[in-house]
């Protein structure tokens, strides 16, 4: 394929600004998808993606478009995940492109994630085409938003294309702009072949299918290949393109986007960001920018029913086939028996994984409160990392505990600056800066411990700003802090799954809240149950759950034994969902109570 007739681009948008709808229209106009096969969010084939209206995995699709200049172009659209948890994946996808469409909702304006992705696109030197979408809505302010875009990134407001992806109005212009403005790829067709892996999925027949952008040279279908970081050598099962379904081709050459069905059985050997080259006469240097995705948030996942342990392991294994950033290892809890410590890119990622386990694998999973990765410096000078409070060694051996801090960027209408300040300060955050990005909205920057960020921060940010604020974050540094382990004792037994690492200044407050929360959540038992929170040997809060006195059906209406049995069966079923901690029955919600300590109930 002549590189001058190829255009590779992706779409950058905040969640709900219409990225998937615009993609749908492009596919329709180019005839890539027949009217008959058209459905909403064509590229989001996961049930969860459709339901949440957000792209979780990247995908690619090739379109053919005959432009007004009479030439026929190969247009590759690379769809990117729509959540900050997956920003590394987004950066790889953007690296596979020469241009990006910046889609902004003409009723909402620019948001934090749009800007974060936009910066990434600018870093990669991508040609930007700005689009304001949803011009069909009565509340649309396309001219205002176009003006904001001009002020923010210096694109001429007159060049901003005003479209309605929903009605299709002006969408053709977008295709023309891509042809005109996005530069063709400039790879060296004769150099040793190199391709960037920007995503992958697992196929039970073809193994791991790597999504690639060929940068230099040509790959032929019978070539032996090498993955440069993992060192895996493979004879691929097939090469192909997405149109939008997988279609085998004989070769993929410089500038093209397609897939390599590797036949590999695990994604570990085929990571996003890795470079594919030829086994014989391969390239000497990989493409820049590969880094291993690093989990930031960790939680214990336990099967509600201990018998499901093997099923949970199998399910995690299968999920990992499609999700290289998911890591897990077996973990044992005194309270919850056998389970896994699972690492995630962020809380959203965790939610997605938990939901997929429950939906796609029909597992009832009990998740402990999420934790971050702490660095522990021992008196001996050794440093090691822990991802669970239970791993913290004896207090007397610890020199210091360090926790990860993040930089966050919050976009908000100026009216909400006060509440956001309060929220961030209440979570140990530090102010960095504030700047106006348009007439009424500001960009606030703070530093904040990740541990505070993962506990209800996002929900409270949203509720405190009536949904207007948006958030982006990235890792900043590890900092030594006055951190202590807060133990929870139920019926005088410490419960490892309820322990947490907290800042000393708030230990007392958190201990009290946790105890009163647990007192409400744990049902009365046949005996009195003390609940205690302790730091070291020092009990900082205690409450007693009084023994249950009365639980009996008074009468059986006119011999209706069936009704009575139904009530008892219902009660028994409810009891089955409780976890036995020693001889105390604890509901699953108790293990997540840590996350809702500041609720007002």
């Amino acid at each position: 394929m002549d590189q001058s007739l190829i255009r590779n681009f992706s779409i950058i948008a905040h969640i709900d600004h219409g990225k998937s709808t615009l993609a749908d229209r492009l596919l329709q106009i180019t005839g890539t998808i027949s009217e008959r096969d058209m459905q909403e969010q064509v590229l989001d084939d996961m049930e969860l993606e459709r339901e949440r209206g957000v792209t979780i995995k990247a995908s690619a699709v090739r379109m053919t478009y005959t432009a007004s200049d009479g030439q026929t172009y190969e247009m590759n659209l690379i769809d990117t995940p729509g959540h900050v948890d997956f920003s590394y994946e987004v950066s790889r996808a953007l690296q596979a492109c020469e241009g990006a469409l910046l889609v902004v909702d003409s009723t909402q304006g620019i948001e934090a994630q749009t800007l974060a992705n936009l910066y990434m696109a600018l870093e990669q030197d991508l040609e930007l085409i700005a689009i304001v979408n949803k011009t069909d809505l009565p509340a649309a302010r396309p001219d205002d938003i176009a003006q904001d875009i001009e002020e923010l990134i210096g694109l001429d407001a007159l060049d901003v294309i005003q479209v309605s992806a929903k009605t299709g109005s002006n969408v053709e212009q977008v295709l023309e702009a891509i042809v005109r403005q996005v530069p063709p790829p400039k790879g060296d067709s004769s150099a040793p072949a190199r391709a960037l892996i920007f995503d992958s999925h697992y196929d039970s027949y073809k193994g791991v299918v790597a999504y690639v952008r060929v940068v230099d040279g040509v790959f032929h279908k019978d070539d032996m290949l090498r993955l440069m970081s993992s060192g895996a050598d493979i004879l691929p099962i097939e090469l192909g393109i997405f149109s939008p379904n997988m279609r085998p081709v004989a070769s993929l050459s410089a500038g093209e986007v397609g897939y390599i069905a590797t036949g590999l059985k695990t994604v570990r050997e085929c990571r996003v960001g890795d470079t594919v080259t030829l086994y014989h006469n391969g390239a000497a240097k990989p493409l820049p920018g590969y880094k291993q995705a690093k989990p930031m948030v960790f939680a214990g996942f336990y099967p509600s029913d201990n018998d499901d342990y093997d099923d949970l392991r199998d399910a995690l294994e299968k999920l990992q086939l499609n999700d290289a950033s998911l890591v897990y290892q077996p973990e044992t809890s005194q309270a919850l028996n056998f389970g896994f410590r699972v690492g995630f890119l962020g809380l959203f990622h965790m939610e997605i994984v938990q939901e997929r386990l429950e939906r796609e694998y029909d597992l009832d999973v009990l998740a402990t409160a999420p934790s971050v990765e702490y660095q522990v410096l021992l008196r001996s000078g050794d440093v090691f990392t822990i991802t669970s409070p239970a791993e913290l060694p004896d207090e007397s051996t610890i020199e210091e505990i360090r926790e990860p801090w993040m930089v966050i960027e919050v976009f908000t209408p100026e009216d909400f600056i006060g509440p956001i300040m309060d929220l961030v300060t209440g979570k140990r955050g530090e102010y960095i800066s504030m700047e106006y990005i348009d007439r009424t909205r500001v960009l606030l920057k703070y530093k904040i411990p990740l541990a505070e960020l993962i506990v209800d921060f996002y929900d409270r940010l949203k509720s405190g700003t009536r949904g207007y604020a948006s958030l982006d974050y990235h890792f900043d540094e590890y900092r030594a802090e006055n951190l202590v382990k807060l133990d929870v004792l139920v019926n005088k037994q410490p419960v490892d799954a309820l322990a947490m690492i907290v800042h000393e200044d708030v230990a007392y407050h958190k201990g009290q809240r946790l105890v009163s929360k647990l007192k409400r959540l744990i049902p009365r038992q046949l005996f009195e149950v003390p609940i205690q929170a302790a730091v070291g040997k020092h009990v900082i809060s205690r409450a007693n759950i009084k023994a249950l006195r009365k639980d009996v059906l008074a009468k059986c209406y006119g011999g209706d034994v069936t009704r009575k049995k139904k009530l008892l069966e219902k009660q028994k079923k409810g009891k089955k969902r409780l976890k036995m901690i020693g001889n105390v029955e604890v509901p699953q919600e108790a293990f997540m109570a840590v996350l809702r300590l500041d609720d007002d109930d």
Partner: protein
Amino acid sequence: MLLLPGAAHTAAPSYHAPDVPLALYLHIPFCRTRCTYCAFSTYSGLSALIPPYMDALAHEIQLVGGGLKRPAHTVYFGGGTPSLIPAALLGHVLDRCRDMFVLPPGAEITLEANPGTVDDTYLRALRQIGVNRLSVGMQSANADELKLFGRCHRQDDVHSTVHTARRVGFTNINLDLIYGTPHQTLAAWQHSLDTALGLDPDHFSLYSLGIEENTPIQRQIALGTLAFPDPDLAADMYEWAASRLAAAGFEQYEISNWTRPGHASQHNLYYWRNLPYLGLGAGAHGYAARIRYANIAHPAAYIECIASQPVPLEFPCSAAADTINSVDRRQAMAETMLMGMRLTVEGVSLDAFRARFGHDLWSIYGAELDRLIASGLVEHTADARVRLTPRGRLLGNRVFIEFV
């Protein structure tokens, strides 16, 4: 220990018990007004249906009886409000029972009566047709509670009903009381029970108020205009009542029932001993010949069903049966446990269990019983019975769920 008449039956029947006499439950699904706590099968404003309904009931008795003259042990008119029915119509139905079943002389025949619906003439007529046990829905001696319940009677009505009943010859009178109600104080409860004791009944049923779905009282609680009753206070009320009644010479024999010696409800013992009973009438439940069934609830539909049935069907159901479930041995054992454990003195006898099911009780429920005994809710008595401990009586569900 309290020996109950009829206890000998527990040793006799095999699990489907063909040779055991039946108890007959006759449902009267009519009320003048609905009580605010009631979720039971009853209707107000349908009094025009009463005569055809009673005819249908008599017809169902005939259809189910099928000319086999099975022995019957008790008859119970429950409701609803059976005392709304003219005595002559009740008598007609009772005659049909006697035609179709063999009722021994002196068999217990109970009628539930609402105070204020009965007078001297009516009670005399009840005696005349053979009713020998009166169960009076007193519920409370406090006007505010009666108002909350939506009861139509006043405390004076209870007084006159009981006295008139005594005068016309009733020697077996039960009073129903409800405790553990929203905003009820311990003192208010004590007043109700003491007032009831002053009427000198032979039997008490004390029911802790159950908040049933779709009742006015439940809706008020959901709206927050009524407080959910405090279960600990209800436990205090129960314990106080148990000691008060013991001091007054009553013996407890079931979780909610107390009797003067010799006046235990023969009919209700059938349920608790898991013995066969026929449910006749709209919405009635029955259990016989390894089948549990329930009749269609609405009286008009019931009348229609019975009218459409020309000949007897397979015992024990009529064409009005709406749900029919067979009970296998395992279920019968479970039901024997969860009903039998309600009997606070008798409990479940190991001998009777073995005789009925051919298995040792411990071989079936050993793990459950050991656990319950260890937790102090159940005791294994010297005379080879398992039963609730005094503490277990208030925590019965914790025991029962082990068997469902």
